[in-house]
């Protein structure tokens, strides 16, 4: 067997033995390569290339468990739904999510982000109001910037009240691309 085949077999055996705490894979998309990672509870991380995938994996090892292996099988459903989303055939993700990398107010903001409908946008101020802290506009910005599940939890749909795009964890080009994709579908 080649080393690649042995490594793939190890991932399957680790999953069967209950030793795979974090499974990950990478996928090419119209907004660049994304890293997807899942715990046994659900999708825990989506990362753009500009976040440095090796650094992201190290953070997952630090914060969740160092038992991290490339194991695409656990991410089958996420891969399929992302494919459909980027093809314009899916407007909502239906995946178990593990929000443990986000806590407190930031986590509240993520919950409200999931209520911003496909093809629409909301302002940082509106998100702050929805989260019950109308004056926490900057904190909403931080919550979006640190969203551990971009694309799937749609922080790209949050824009500035003056109509400007605002920042994005995956870069402004990616944000524009996602909003254009949703507008065209």
């Amino acid at each position, binding site marked *: 067997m080649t080393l690649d085949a042995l490594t793939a077999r190890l991932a399957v055996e680790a999953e069967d033995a209950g*030793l795979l705490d974090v499974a990950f894979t990478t996928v090419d998309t119209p907004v660049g390569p994304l890293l997807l990672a899942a715990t046994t509870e659900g999708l825990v991380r989506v990362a753009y290339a500009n976040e440095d995938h090796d650094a992201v994996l190290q953070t997952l090892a630090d914060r969740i468990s160092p038992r991290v292996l490339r194991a695409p099988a656990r991410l089958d459903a996420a891969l399929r739904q992302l494919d459909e989303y980027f093809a314009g055939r899916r407007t909502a993700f239906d995946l178990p999510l593990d929000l443990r990398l986000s806590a407190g107010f930031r986590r509240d903001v993520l919950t409200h982000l999931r209520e911003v409908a496909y093809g629409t946008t909301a302002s940082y101020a509106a998100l702050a109001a929805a989260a019950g802290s109308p004056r926490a506009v900057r904190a909403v910005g931080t919550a979006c910037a640190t969203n551990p599940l971009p694309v799937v939890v749609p922080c790209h749909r949050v824009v500035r009240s003056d109509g400007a795009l605002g920042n994005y964890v995956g870069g402004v080009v990616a944000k524009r691309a996602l909003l254009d994709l949703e507008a065209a579908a």
Partner: protein
Amino acid sequence: MRLEPFEAVVRRHGPAVLRVCRAVVGPDAADDAWSETFLAALRAYPELPPGSNVEAWLVRIAQRKAVDQLRAAARRAVPVAEPPDVPSALGLPGQDDGELWTALAALPDRQRQAVAYHHLAGLPYAEIAALVGGTPEAARRAAADGVAALRRTYRGDLP
């Protein structure tokens, strides 16, 4: 100090551990020995003290798995005329790997392990002695005798 993602451990040390497994249990059983080694390592990994010598730790686990396999093979007592040649894409030394593995397999256990752990895994003799028993001097002698035997039986280039 932090533990790396296990994926990085497999990537960095997987090739060396596979060479050791091939040398110690032969190319046939090496895949299973490798899988068992890394599965056991994955189980214990979160408890590994940061800063440990990861390769030496993996080789210790591989040694236990190899001993298990050799014992199981002895119990089954299936005679094999000669290990088959297995093509390798792993950049092993020399072009005639099959012959080298055959020559290695013909060595006594002590010599084969000493050669594998010293020349393939790069462990110092003191660590090899701790692994397989005996003194560092005996491990050094076994490795030297093993290499000398290989020079007689194996016609390819030795590093």
